[in-house]
């Protein structure tokens, strides 16, 4: 840590932006192309009943799945093109911030000697519970 905090911050910020860009651009393209095929619609229809429980439309399935499985950045990239209200965006943000990058991060907690199932149950359970509570409490 010999460099100044300003230089370190700039470097970290640019690195993060680069990671974001690499994840966001492909996610955007995927959403745009999937939107023109029946795939997105099929996924949305399947996810609709489940997502409806927490007040989300079926189309929220894609950013949620991408965020949980691939990375938070990819999830955000797939979320940005969707036209959602503040409540829906916030509920998705809560779910994704609690449960993202699951394969990688669960491997990390496993290194601490914590069971994979425990880590997954905590994250997915908490995400679902918080989303459900927000949906109940937040009346627009």
């Amino acid at each position: 840590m010999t460099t100044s905090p300003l230089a370190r911050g700039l470097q970290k910020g640019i690195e993060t932006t680069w990671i974001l860009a690499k994840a966001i651009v492909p996610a955007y393209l995927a959403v745009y192309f999937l939107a023109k095929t029946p795939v997105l619609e099929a996924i949305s229809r399947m996810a609709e009943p489940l997502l409806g429980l927490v007040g989300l439309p079926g189309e929220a399935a894609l950013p949620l799945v991408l965020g949980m499985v691939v990375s938070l950045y990819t999830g955000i990239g797939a979320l940005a093109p969707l036209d959602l209200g503040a409540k829906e965006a916030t509920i998705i943000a809560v779910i994704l911030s609690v449960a993202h990058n699951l394969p990688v991060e669960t491997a990390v907690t496993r290194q601490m000697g914590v069971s994979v199932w425990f880590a997954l149950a905590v994250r997915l359970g908490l995400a679902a519970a918080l989303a459900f509570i927000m949906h109940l409490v937040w009346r627009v």
Partner: protein
Amino acid sequence: MGWAEAATAIWQAGKEAGVTVLTMAAIVIPLMVAVEFLREWRVFDRLSARLAPGVSRLGLSGHAAFPLAAGAVLGLSYGSGLIIDSAREGRLTRREAYVLTALLAPCHAIFEDTLLFVPLGVNPFLLLAVRAGGALALTLVLARLWQSAAGPGIPPAGGPGGRASGEPASGPASRSARRTSL
């Protein structure tokens, strides 16, 4: 779809993705600079010292305070790099590793993760409050359950003295974590 349509879709998607990336850059870069200044001024170290009495309420020893603060603020694998380190040196019990995971797995890198959602119109204070509040509540419940199940007899994972709380452990885990910021 035809070629023209495909080209339009790519152009449209690329343009919007570009705007999103630039918006994120405008938020993320100044934030990172601010976080680095806070670290330079040792705000996080002082924070972890302040946290030490609080973590006992979660059934954690003071040794867990610094890994906890590091994970919450800087990211999961950075924090767990410290936790794994502490666990190997026998300063953390198995129960403490589980308590830390219950808290940190859902709630880490709280500034970076939260700010990523701001360009999408999400209120960062609300998001952070819900996320941190939920993780804390869950951890308190689990800590209480485990405490009563295991009895108060669990030794506080004592080794001689704690890590000097100033410098974070540097290892492959912490270095890579800083880069990828999980």
